[in-house]
């Protein structure tokens, strides 16, 4: 067993874990934050995307202990005080989900795209940037629309506050 501690959704957490524990297992099994999903185990599908120190990573392909001391944000940490993050709202507004399994990873990736590419995203950029997230219900068209709307909303004064 090895001791690991980090900040998850603003809260300090720590546990003694098997050294081979993946970050996604730590989140799902130790912290019971089951919003982050595992779809492929091989960093292809993107259902497990979370933010580590402000950058999107696939949590199925990094060890929990590699993220010692990190600041981790999961889908559960996005909404605050009952107010949805603008990207979450955009997914709801645009019917950008069906079974919902890929959705947490999609939303976390989408926010990361805005962080890296700005809020004025064209369709081509969004499609290219979502390469690492798979939706098997094949709802990409609405996902692309949602990401564009969410990006614009994040730039608006109220959206920027929620996106912090």
């Amino acid at each position: 067993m090895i001791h690991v501690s980090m900040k998850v959704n603003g809260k300090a957490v720590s546990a003694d874990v098997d050294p081979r524990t993946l970050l996604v297992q730590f989140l799902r099994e130790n912290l019971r934050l089951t919003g982050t999903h595992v779809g492929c185990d091989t960093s292809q599908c993107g259902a497990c995307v979370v933010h580590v120190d402000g950058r999107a990573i696939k949590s199925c392909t990094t060890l929990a202990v590699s993220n010692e001391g990190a600041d981790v944000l999961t889908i559960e940490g996005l909404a605050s005080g009952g107010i949805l993050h603008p990207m979450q709202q955009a997914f709801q507004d645009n019917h950008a989900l069906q079974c919902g399994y890929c959705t947490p990873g999609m939303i976390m990736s989408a926010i990361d795209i805005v962080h890296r590419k700005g809020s004025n995203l064209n369709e081509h950029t969004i499609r290219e940037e979502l390469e690492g997230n798979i939706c098997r219900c094949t709802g990409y068209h609405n996902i692309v629309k949602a990401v564009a709307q969410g990006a614009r909303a994040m730039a608006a004064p109220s959206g920027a506050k929620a996106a912090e």
Partner: protein
Amino acid sequence: MSATGIGASVKRKEDHRFITGKGHYTDDINRPGQAYAYFIRSPHAHATINKIDVSAALKAPGVVAIYTGDDIAQDKVGGLICGWMIHSKDGSPMKAGAHPALAQGKVRYVGDHVAVVIADTYAEAKDGAEKVVVDYGVLPAAADPAGAAKSGAPQVHDVAPNNTVYNWHLGDKASTDAAFGAAKHVTRLDIVNNRLIPNAMEPRAAVGEYDSGMDAFTLYTTSQNPHVARLVLAAFIGIAPEHKLRVIAPDVGGGFGSKIFIYAEETVSLWAAKKVGRAVKWTAERTEAFLSDAHGRDHVTHAELALDASGKITGLRVHTIANLGAYLSTFSSAVPTYLYGPLLSGQYAIPAIYCEVDAVYTNTAPVDAYRGAGRPEATFVVERLVEVAARETGRDPAEFRRANFVTSFPHQTPVVFAYDAGDYAASLDKALALADYKGVGQRKAASAAKGKLRGVGLSAYIEACGLAPSAVVGSIGAGVGQWESAEVRVNPTGSVEVLTGSHSHGQGHETTFAQLVSDRLGIPIENVSVVHGDTDKVQFGMGTYGSRSGAVGMAAISKALDKIEAKAKKVATYVLEAAEGDIEFKDGKFIVKGTDKAIDFGSIALQAYVAHKFNGQ
């Protein structure tokens, strides 16, 4: 119509939990003290199991138990079943090879379940599995469906000589042969419809639990039809009778057919929970999904189309070899037969059709219903034939289709179905206009000038979906009914719960079904909950597949709403002191015709519960 009724653009009720990470998928469920299962799978397509040595593995850290096919047999756990009986053309029943949940004596495909290791953690179960030594006697494998029935091919099941499950046929051979005898042109095609893997985003998972105090089991599972899972686990596999078995399918992350079936893993997890006295959890890795989720399609077909001099289709002859894999999965036998043959007329008036299907075993993963299940396979055959026939005879593929469309209805095809209505030419016209079909030549030339290729493809599709209760379903071999259950509960304050046997795995039933209630009762969808996926809550159901939940599931809800409305009207007669015939229900209000006397639905609900106005009646 209410503001949130059918046709209104509403936001999905289920989305909030999914966009906030609060969904409840099977792998999100954890039970106190649970152990984890890992399945040892065959690395060989075909082999005898000579010996399984578990002694070292049993000593591995965290390992609780290891079970093999012998343990399953000893406990008299029944095998997995195929619930649709197909008879061969000679009248003999299909040859169903035994399908034990853990292999007994022999493995028949790569991924076949050899043993299960149960341990305190998943990692320990997996580590323990590495210490299990299985001595296999590798046998030659039958992998090619086209060669499986030929003499000399390795035999998958002793009960099925020549690897043949059945030789099925549909249609009239004599009249079809006659049509070909008189044909001016015959188009012949060999078509392969390749096998594929369904790959829902959410891998299959199961948590089995046994309550010794109640002598009752609970299974959480990734299922499109939890009631059918309970029925099969109770009546055929025999783990527990239905009243001692609760099956819960919580949020399901896509299915595409693959989560209809009752598999080895959930069976073993449930059975093992009692053996080890702990909840047992199993979640597939993606590799396991590739190996052992039921696959789709896998047809090898020779098809022929007969034309007269004017380009009218006069006959269709199809011979398909359908690969069902190493074992018959739950509904596999129906897919290349009754979900396939009856669709072979497509949108065309074809006077004579004859279809033969030879279903074969091979040493490959089982094949069952996947997206459309049989029907897309039929369309592929028909549309490829029509396209090639048009080209061979120098006709425009669009006009060739149009000339052969069914134009008068009702139309009885030679393959079971009667079409009641349709306007295929109108759909074609619309498609051609949208695609600027007339301008294709020009665009093709423009592309060619730039050194590029441009093509055009057409397909006309007819679907049979919304499988519903009928004498026909029974007569063609279905082991289950195809009805759907619905229960509408009105609470004292007028909010409504709909209990349905349909089960969403992404279709949005919680919204669509609530819209139906909203529409009928004039209450907002926020006041409606849809309850599904739990055999203890919902009386029974057939589940969701084949585009049936809207057509059949909602029809059942609509019937239940008729009863609610009739009962509410009766209550209104007492409350409003009016004759039943004088009361009309409109926009959520019961009104005495021609007066301003009215009462809303919620108030009627409360009156129904307090029963002050009509006690004893």
